[in-house]
């Protein structure tokens, strides 16, 4: 069992040597990259990585370049999880048979996928991997849209967002359905650890990633990924928008242990109105009209109810 990398503070963390390289094709200001850096830098262990088709994969592995400093595999859209699960199974087999090339080193198996791959098309595959209990971590880079293909809705797209396949128009306010609760679904698989993280709260994220790596079995991490291109804000504001998301509780940061113990891990000193979060992004611009502004109130109510629910569950220890 390898030692957990000690990260007391940001200065100590800054001595990390990134295993993810620049000159990739991700948009300037892309949060995916910040998340990947925090995940990979949380450990010094060897890594076996996979990615599903999506922004991360398409921008970091286009022949003749790779941006990955660890072994990495991409197969298709649905199956980043299965790719890493298969590698994990091979690791176990080779270990049993004494054929590992570096038998003293235990790699961590991590799959990355967008919300498209995770919430929608790859859902069955992830569910299978989790049910089978592979020793792996799945990190969903949740930008609430199929960003790579130009911004179509996913089941993670929240109500009222205007995206290309649920655009706001004269008679529509955009996405009609509420965001799927992947955290609850993955926790219900009995996974030892699931957690919601955001890249602006690096300490919270790194602590959770380390907890995830220390757990035995499948771990699900839902990472909020503010998308400058599809959420429509200036590239320099990625961290600022992430702050609005976590401080308005639109993206509450919490963890669920063994499917039952829910802990809220971040309580904002000043809770920001949801209105401020929505108002900072072009994809919600149309909500600020007479016709649609009731939706902003509904948003606030929904976020308040969810926060209330999380607190009650935390207190009740279920």
């Amino acid at each position, binding site marked *: 069992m390898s030692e957990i990398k000690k990260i007391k503070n940001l200065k100590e963390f800054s001595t990390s040597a990134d295993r993810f390289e620049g000159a990739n094709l991700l948009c300037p200001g892309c949060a995916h990259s910040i998340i990947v850096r925090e995940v990979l830098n949380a450990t010094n262990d060897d890594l076996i990585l996979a990615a599903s088709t999506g922004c991360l994969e398409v921008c970091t592995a286009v022949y003749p370049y790779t941006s990955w400093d660890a072994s990495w595999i991409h*197969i298709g859209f*649905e199956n980043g999880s299965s*790719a*890493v699960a298969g*590698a994990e199974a091979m*690791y176990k087999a*080779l270990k*049993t048979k004494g054929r590992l090339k*570096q038998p003293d080193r235990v790699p961590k198996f991590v799959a990355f996928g967008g919300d498209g791959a995770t919430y929608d098309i790859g859902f069955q595959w992830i569910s*299978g991997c989790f049910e089978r209990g592979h020793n792996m971590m799945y990190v969903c880079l949740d930008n609430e849209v199929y960003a790579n293909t130009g911004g179509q809705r996913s089941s993670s797209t929240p109500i009222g967002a205007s995206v290309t396949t649920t655009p706001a128009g004269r008679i529509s306010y955009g996405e009609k359905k509420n965001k799927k609760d992947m955290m609850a679904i993955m926790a219900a698989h009995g996974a030892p650890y699931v957690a919601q993280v955001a890249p602006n709260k690096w300490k919270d994220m790194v602590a959770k990633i380390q907890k995830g790596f220390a757990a035995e079995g499948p771990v699900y991490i839902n990472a909020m990924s503010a998308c400058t291109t599809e959420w429509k804000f200036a590239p320099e504001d990625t961290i600022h928008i992430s702050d609005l998301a976590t401080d308005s509780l639109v993206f509450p940061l919490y963890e669920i242990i063994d499917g039952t113990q829910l802990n809220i891990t971040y309580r904002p000193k000043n809770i920001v109105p949801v209105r401020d979060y929505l108002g900072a992004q072009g994809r919600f611009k149309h909500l600020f009209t007479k016709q649609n502004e009731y939706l902003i109130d509904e948003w606030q109510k929904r976020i308040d109810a969810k926060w209330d629910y999380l607190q009650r569950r935390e207190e009740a220890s279920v």
Partner: protein
Amino acid sequence: MADTIELRDIEVWDGNMAASHALRQVQVDVVAAYPITPSTPIVEGYAGFKANGYVDGEFVMTESEHGAMSCCIGAAAAGGRVATATSSQGFALMLETLYSASGMRLPIVLNLVNRAIGAPLNVNGDHSDMYMGRDSGWIQFGAYSPQEAYDLNFIAFKVSEDHDVRLPAIVNQDGFMTSHTAQGVHTLSDEAAYNFVGEYKPMNDMLDLDHPVTHGVQTEEDWHFEHKARQQHALMTAVIPKIQAAFDDFEKLTGRKYNIVESYDMDDAEVAVICMGTSVETAREVALEMRAQHGIKAGVIGIRVFRPWPLEQIAAALKNVKAVATLDRSSPHGAMGALFNEVSGSLFNTDTKAVLTNYIYGLGGRDLTKAHLVSIFTDLKANADAAKPTTPLQQYIGLRGPKLSFF
């Protein structure tokens, strides 16, 4: 270390049992699979071996066939011996990943127990799944019996894992007719079987932690053509010689001789049928009867290697024949049968002036009987004598209702 089993020299096995023993004997590192009729007993047999300590590799029961092949690809890229089994709908479901496996040049062996693809839903044997995989870039072997299903698994692993090949391979066998029909199978000992295939030699393995490698990279219009050309080059030049070498080694080990194209009584044949699977043996019996009872010089060509398509060997086998029929056990859906098209392509531009016709038969498990074959050979004799088709180009045989034929 997994326990070994002392097999008898001849075991009474159906095709499924033969395949699962072969997988046990080559000591597969990861089997990721999903059950589907009629291949299910392969994974059930393998699970039984695992539960009783005869397998120490991993056995992953996935949530679908697409998941199974996805795990197989991850495992193969990680670096070890990988296998699975499926049929029909399951094969169709994993089709996307088949292209990935071959494009990524990963050795994986798939036992495909041939079954009809719906609609309508059908669990019985025909070749529609085999045909669906034609363009996927996999090597495809055809077994006609449980013995051959067993033997060809060893050939498949050996060829697929060769560093000059590195392409996944399918071993086909007829659903129910081979998979569930028991026969005496000459066995190899666990040791002899494993040693024939040899230890897995890793290449580009992700689990070599000192040499991180990126698998599954995207290529656009500036690189894709070159990568696909490379894959085609391997399929067209490296594979058949390696298969022949493996066949030669296998013959030395067991006395059983396999050929890239199986020719039966073709030396002086004036008429021939070309087919795959269990039909080959039926056709061989009828060909001998046609010679003995009707004086018709009949021969049979069995397709042993379906992919890569052995164009030159097929042309050579049919060189002096006057009339040929391809028997296709799959619904061609608006075209001539696949074998008809591949064979005509092989004979075009040669001097062979054979009359070529096509029979569609046996869909969804409908039997091909000796009587059917007698009528086919009789048609062929008439074609040979007339030096042109005396029947429509495509005929359905064994079908109830008015005669169905085209062209």
